[in-house]
């Protein structure tokens, strides 16, 4: 299974004068959870729509399962678009059965699977209701079921968690993890950094139609370590000031020492031993995804993008 699930090479897409995706390269190996991160309008949805061949790139190539995202390859994907597409006047169960049948399930199989999913997402009592009678969040869950119902090899989810309450977000996150355990590839876009940090194995950061960074999240974090450390100890912090460290930030009983102090890790540890400080924790801090993003997007003077990311959609 060395085959890539998705490969983008030099992909550019313009809408009129606006460039939505610019010279983009991306490789998504199989069997991982990949987060596509970026503020609104950074080109996430355009990329996803190109992977699903809803849009065709102006330049570059898009490959799905090793080839053009034709009909046969697309049918191996469960796709959840950003805009919630449902037949509003159809009943919940009927809609799910329709989608299941369309993707090759026999009627009875589609019915029983849909029933199980509805139960799991606590929608059983709504199965006979028309979709337009459901709340937005419930509609979204129904649509999510439609995405996973036919047990596709890959899930492509465009902002799957937006608009859901925290409890339902957790339920969906759990399902995503489960599907990953079952060997599926999951690509989802989000503008919520913390969520991506919880869920993803790989990330791809986008800002203003350009790729900022991508790769394995753990490696990325290790690579992006600044050298800042967190120190937790008994007693007062006098020994740190005596070492010439002043801008200490106290977070949950731990003293965070940023790199700007230019005091080596060895000197800090030596001082602690010398001064007889009882150390509870000494840790080289890993940056959060948000910090990484700010650092890199900032280099491209993309600061306004961050403002957009702070606010809720």
């Amino acid at each position, binding site marked *: 299974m060395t085959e890539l699930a998705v490969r983008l090479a030099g992909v550019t897409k313009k809408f009129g004068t606006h460039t939505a995706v610019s010279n983009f390269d991306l490789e998504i190996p199989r069997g991982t959870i990949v987060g596509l991160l970026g503020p609104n309008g950074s080109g996430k949805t355009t990329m996803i729509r190109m992977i*699903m061949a*809803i849009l065709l790139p102006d330049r570059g190539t898009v490959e799905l399962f090793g080839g053009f995202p034709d009909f046969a390859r697309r049918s191996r*994907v469960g*796709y959840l678009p950003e805009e919630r*597409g449902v*037949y509003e*006047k159809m009943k919940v169960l009927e809609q799910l059965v329709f989608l299941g*049948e*369309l993707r090759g399930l026999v009627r009875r199989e589609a019915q029983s699977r849909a029933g199980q999913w509805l139960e799991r997402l606590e929608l059983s009592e709504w199965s006979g209701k028309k979709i337009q009678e459901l709340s937005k969040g419930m509609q979204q869950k129904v649509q999510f079921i439609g995405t996973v119902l036919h047990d596709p090899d890959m899930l492509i989810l465009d902002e799957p968690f937006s608009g859901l309450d925290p409890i339902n977000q957790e339920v969906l996150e759990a399902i995503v993890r489960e599907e990953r355990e079952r060997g599926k590839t999951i690509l989802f876009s989000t503008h919520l950094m913390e969520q991506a940090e919880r869920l993803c194995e790989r990330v791809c950061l986008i800002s203003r139609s350009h790729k900022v960074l991508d790769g394995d999240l753990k490696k990325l974090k290790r690579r992006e370590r600044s050298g800042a450390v967190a120190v937790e100890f008994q007693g007062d912090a006098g020994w740190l000031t005596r070492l010439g460290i002043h801008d200490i930030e106290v977070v949950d009983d731990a003293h965070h020492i940023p790199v700007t102090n230019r005091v080596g890790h060895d000197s800090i540890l030596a001082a602690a031993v010398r001064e007889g400080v009882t150390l509870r924790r000494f840790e080289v801090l890993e940056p959060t995804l948000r910090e990484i993003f700010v650092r890199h997007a900032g280099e491209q003077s993309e600061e306004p993008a961050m403002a957009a990311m702070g606010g809720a959609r």
Partner: protein
Amino acid sequence: MRQVWIVMRREYLERVKTKGFILSTIALPVLMIGLIGLSAFLGVQSERSERELALIDYTGLIGEEVAGRLAAFGYEMEVVGADVGQEELDRQIMEDELEGYLVIDDLTLTEGVFAYRGKDRPSSLRRNLFERFVVQTALDRHLSALEDGASVRALIEGGQLDFESVVEETDGEDAEVNRITGIVTGFGGAFLLYFTMLLYGAYVLRSVLDEKRNRVVEVVISSISPWRLLLGKVLGVGSMGLTQLGIWFASAAVLATFGVPFVVAQLQATGLEDVLQFLPGPGVIALLGAYFVLGYFLYASMFAAVGAMCSSEEEAQQAQFPVMMLLIVPFVLQMATIEGSGFAWMDWVALFPYFSPVMMFPRAAAGAVPWWMVASSLVLMALALVGTAWVAGRIYRVGILMQGKRPTLRELVRWVKTA
């Protein structure tokens, strides 16, 4: 094919289950049949009196015959002589033994004037029947005394204009009946074709537009090819249309089977056979079916393309105008030449495949064009359908995934080329 079937079934069921469909399809004919049936029933009931009618004949000449004719029509009629007297009959009416009675005297013989005495004013049906039978009986009496009575009667009953074509032989009454049937069927069929293509075409447009607007199509299209989706959709709406037409035809048939004989019996103007001979034959109905199927697919594919290139209802209203013109123009032309005659060049216009359903079918039904013209119009329509579906399918395929502004004509051409 399985996917086409799944889409078609969804489209069909979702439409047939709506209140609007049930209301327009089932409730309408039921209501109409019910109303006609009810009024007919009430009319009969009020005429079927339990009480007797009487006839007092002061002339002693025509009373028996009038009573006989009325009895044949189902009235219980007792003829009494002048010896009984009107006071006695009036008393019987007051005591509800008799409903009413006719008074026939000399004036009836000469001027057709007679009286009906009773508590209630007679219904218009009863009044008509009584007048007709009494006057006819009196007239018969006068005519039988004349030598040339038969010809006088014929003249009284009205003359008739026989059209004799100098172009071709008309073989009598049958041809005339066929011609009238053809014209009526042709016009009715043309209207039905016009109406259904417009209506069901609009359904297809709406269906495509809705799917595009709420982005369901993006999900669906990842599992099914656009061609199959479109085919399933058109077939689904089409079968809904056939269901609707079927129900309407069936109720019309019910009406014809039970309603027409009833009306005929009531009026006794014409025999049942006279009416039935005007109903179209199976050949014409098959032809209507052929024009419906070809015409529906032709227009449905165009309406689908319009739906796919628009993003809102308002846009679609405008964009469907050219397609609607293709339907309205032949309809207007057809109205101008309702009997299928008119200018000869119109027959050639009717060969234009987009006009054929509305223009060629009535001509074919009325027998106004040679058979080879009808056949070529069907072939041309089939060819046009292949071409139109090819172009429309390509527009559909690109259009359903395209958001934003409606494409210009040049962009459309590019869609068709690149799709």
